[in-house]
Structure formats: C-alpha cells, structure tokens
C-alpha cells in the first residue's frame, strides 16, 4: 500500500504529467471497478448455478475477455507511481547526475521494449480485426463466440499510454541530468525501506 513520491510544479512537463496522470487514474479506477464487477458476476454465476441450476452463459469467456482490463488498464498508472517492482539497493545509493543518468537509461530501455510491444500487440490485434467479418472479428472465444479483438485492442492502447508515460519519464530524468536537478518533476523518486514504512503507517492512520 505504498503511496507515491512524485513532485509537481507549474512547468509544461509537470502539467503534461498531471494531465496524463488524470487519464491513468481514471483507467486504473475503471480496472478496480471491473474487479469488483468480476466479484459480483462470479457470485451471481455461482448462486444462479447452485440455486437455479442456471449458470450465466459464457461466464468463462466473459472473464477471459475482461482479464485484459484488469491486467493492462492500470499499467501506466503503476509506472507513474513507481509501482512496478525494481531492485533499488544499488541505484538508491547514487546521487545527482549519476542517478538521473541511470534513471534515464533504465526508462529508455523500457521505452524501447514498449515501442516493440506496441507494434507487436497491434499486429496481434490486427490479425483478429476485419471490417468484413461478423462482429468485425476473424477469431472468437470457445463457448459463446465473443470477438477477441476488443481485448487485444485494450492491450495495445494501454501500452500506447505507457509509451507516452515513458517518453515523459525519459524527458524528466534527462532534463534532471542536464540541469543537475535535486528532485526531478513528474517521476517517482526512490524511497528507501524506512520511507515505505512511513507510507504504510500513513495508510493505517487513514483507516483509523
């Protein structure tokens, strides 16, 4: 339950970061609500199957399709808050320009990967999608023949959003390196175990 450690100010970079963060937050909340939806759907499915002998048709197919929502809509939000696991024992000891150079390089590596993934996942979507086919779909799920392209498109779009987030992060860390900044704007700063613990305490205080 760690909170984020991202600085903001009035610069263009920060404004872009915050605008993007609003979109990312909305999508992440959508993913969360869909998880709650999955819970309700599964409960209905089980009760309906056990009590009325009438399971929801295509339940497994629907869940499979919505997995793309749970798995991908929050990916850029998580990157913005530094939520993807990393090992920061070494990088946490770096300071100033050396640190920002390392962060720029590591963000750039991810940017390269995500660029390739955007192409690859779009190709994967495009093979499924066909305006001339029923439901615009060349392939479908096993049970109730749901088209697969919407889930594939969600993956590509989520990765595009992550790509934009990474461009901002490369920009922010690169600028911090050039200017020798103390705290870059719009990027997650490294938290040591003690700061993480403090955040955990904050969350508990909020719960009461």
């Amino acid at each position: 339950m760690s909170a984020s450690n991202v600085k903001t100010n009035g610069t263009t970079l920060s404004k872009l970061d915050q605008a993007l963060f609003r979109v990312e937050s909305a999508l992440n909340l959508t993913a969360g609500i869909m998880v709650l939806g999955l819970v309700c759907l599964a409960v209905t499915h089980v009760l309906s199957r056990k009590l009325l002998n009438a399971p929801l048709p295509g339940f497994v197919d629907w869940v499979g399709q919505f997995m793309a929502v749970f798995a991908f809509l929050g990916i850029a939000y998580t990157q913005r808050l530094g939520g993807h696991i990393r090992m920061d024992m070494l990088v946490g000891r770096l300071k100033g320009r050396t640190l920002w150079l390392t962060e720029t390089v590591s963000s750039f590596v991810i940017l390269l990967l995500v660029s390739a993934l955007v192409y690859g996942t779009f190709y994967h979507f495009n093979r499924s999608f066909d305006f001339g086919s029923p439901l615009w779909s060349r392939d479908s799920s096993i049970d109730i023949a749901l088209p697969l392209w919407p889930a594939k498109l969600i993956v590509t779009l989520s990765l595009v959003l992550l790509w934009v987030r990474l461009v901002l992060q490369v920009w922010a860390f690169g600028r911090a390196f050039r200017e020798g900044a103390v705290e870059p704007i719009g990027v997650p700063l490294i938290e040591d175990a003690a700061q993480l613990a403090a955040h955990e305490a904050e969350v508990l205080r909020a719960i009461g």
Partner: protein
Amino acid sequence: MNDLIDMKALLAGVDMFNVSLWLSGLLIVLVLIGVRVAFAAAFIGFIGLCLFFMQKQGFDKGLITAMKLTGQIPHSKSTTYALSLIPTFILIGYLAYYAGLTQFLFEAAKRWVGWLPGGLGVATVFATAGFAAVSGASVATSAVFAKIAIPEMLKLGYDKRFAAGVVAAGGTLASLIPPSAILVIYAIIVEQSVGQLLMAGFLPGAVSALIYAGLIILMAKFRPSLGPSVGGFSWKQRFESLPGTTPIILVVFIIIYSIYFGWATPTEAGALGAFVVLIMALWQGMRWEALKGALMESAKLTAMIFTMIWGVLIYVRYLGFADLPRAFSHWVTSLDQPAMVTLLLILGAYVVLGMFMDAIGMLILTLPVTFPAVIALNGGANVTAEMSTLGMSGQECGIWFGIIVVKMAEICLITPPIGLNCFVVAGVAQDGKMDISVQDVFRGAAPFFVADVVTVGVLIAFPGIVLWLPGLLVS
C-alpha cells in the same frame, strides 16, 4: 530490399547458447541498475528473440518476427481464466483492512491462548495466521498487527524487541496460507495446478504458525521477562469473542471447500471470499472513498503482477529457444554430489538473493531456470515416487518445491539489510510514538529466522505435510 545491417553474416556461426548466457548476465546488470524487473526480463527476452531470428532471417525479417512473436505474449498469457483468481485474492486482502477483522481476531486469540507463557505473542501469531486466511500480503499483515498488537504487549510489560519480532515474523505467514497471490504466480510460471498449490500451502502455514508459537512459549518460559501470560478469561468470554471471526472462518471454508469438493473454481471461490469480506467491510462502515482506495490499490497491484507474469514469460519464451533451462538442469544433475546437497545449495542461494531482492521479483526471475533443474534433480517430470531421488513423484515435486521457495522468499522479509516486514513494523511503531528502532525489530525477529530454517527442514524431511492435502484433491 537489403537489410540495414547484414546480421545473417554477423551472427553466422555464433553459438546462441553462449549468447543466452551473456544476455542473462545483461539481465542481472539491468536489474541492478534499477530497470523494473518485469520490463528488464521482457527486454532481454525480446533482444534474445531478435538475435535468434536475425541469425536465421536477417535484420529486417528477424526484427519483425521477434516483434510479432513478443507482441502475442502479453494478451495471450494474461487473458486466461485461471489468472482471474489473482485480482479477487488481492481485493480480499485490501478489503480485509477495512473490515475490522484484525481487531476481532486478536481479541479472540488473546482470550483463547493468552494464558500461555508469552500469551500475547502466541495470540499475535495465531491472529496473523487467521488474517493470512483473508490476506495474501505479508507486509500489510505486519503493518496492521504492529498497530494493534505491539501497543497492547508493551502495556503489559513485554520486551519491545520480542513484541516487534513476533509481529514481523507473524506477517510472513500470509504468503503460505491461502489465498496467496504468490503461490498463484508460481503456479502460472511453472505450469502447476493452482488449486493444488493453494491447498498445499495450508498445512505448512499452520506448521509455521505452530513452530512460531512453540518458540515464543519456550522463550517466555525460560526468560519470563520477555512477556507474561494474560489470564482471567472465562469460557463465556472466550466464546463471546468468536462471532467476530466468522467472516474469516467463512472465507477459509469457502476457499477450501470449493477447491476440495470442486464446488466452485478457484476464481469463483476467490470472488465469493471477496464478496463476504466486502459485505463485512460495508457493515463496518466502509465508505466510497475507502472502497475507491481499495479498488485503486487492487488494480495497481494487479497490473504490477500481470506485467511481471507476461514480462517473464517473454523471457521464458526466449530461454526455450536458447535451451538454457535444459542445459542448466543437465549441469545440475551431472554434479558429483547428493541431490539433497544441490537442493540445499539452491535454497541457500535463495536466502542470499532474498536479502537483496523483492520476493516476487526473485521468484519470478529465477524459477524459469531453477524449477526445471529441481524437477530434473528429482528424476524428471514423469518420475514416480519410488524411482525419484527426493522421494516424491515429478508432479508432487512441482507442488512441494513451490511451497519451499515461497517459504524461502518469506524468510527474506525478516532478514537484514532490506527485510521489509521489519522496516514496516518499526515504521508503524514509530508512527504510534513507540520507541522501537529497525535494529530492535531485526534483533527481535532473529529467533524466528531460526524457527523458519527449522520449518524448511521439517518440510524437506516430511514432504507429506505439503503433499497430503493436494493429494486428497487428486484422489
């Protein structure tokens, strides 16, 4: 059209197995310089696939083939029904925070076992084990009990290091006792049965809790200044404390019963559990802001875990092309030493790695190579128990090793320098104006490290503790 670079000529005669070793080294460098583990693994997997296909098809075609192949994995590996269990388990954990279950559990445990030497410590361990049945998050469990149990123990004159150590160690039980997200991740990465692994974690989790409790009783008996017993509760008061724990009993019952009797799929069981805890949280007065917070955190953690899964599976796809896991297995089995020694060396490596790496990251990065090696060490995936080296069939070995490595990963949460549970306990204690430093928590947790080593020894010596419940499931 000519290639940008003549990679076919450049890579002609290059041994792709050697390249895979270099790339695995580069992966370690990337992880060390702080590249997010999931993306570092996927990046190396992608680069490996590029080189593999470029050697055969040239630069342009090889690059396109690698991008197309890599691009299939995130969608195809994430949208499987079996994985839908993960978000429901995560949601249960976050909602359990708000459902007030911890207070009820601690109170009930205190009334029932408080009379033992070090009674509040024993109560804390059993309460954390109970909370683990609705939460798969070790750090969160430690945080929540640091707030509830430590002040009460300090009030009764418990040694502060002892109190803090009990809470930090008790938190580690969350990963073994179902619902455990880390066991589901293990199941997916190494292609084992999710249901069997979840069942397998139950008894080892209970054994860990009993060993912790035994250690606390022994320590308090020989050094009564560590913590007195808390007596004076009547049977009426004890039974009065039980209704508050009903949701937990219900969740445990639903998950175990559903999986065991095939009444519902693991996902459905997870969803039913989440529903029960949600109702309890709403009953306790949870409002939209808090629910929104739980949903945001659940979605974030879900995205993180899924990114790890498909990221590592890109790497695994490449390793398959490079034949690295098979070569490592071959090397491990050809070592001139007993299989048990090799296994213990692998587990020792996990202890060292875990001192520096996050538990999930450590498991997910190493399993593609260590899992096939351990299976090979036992005699292969299809070996029978009679013909095996470690005394269990190939399938049983897959389940058993999952429980052992998850336990190893848990041990690392209480070992310096980055044992996160200890930092969290100290952070929460200091936030509550208690005079407990991180060093105090590490020292307090040290005896539990020894207890954990004993537990792992017991699980290795008696694999039946792990395999009995999943064995019933199979039969």
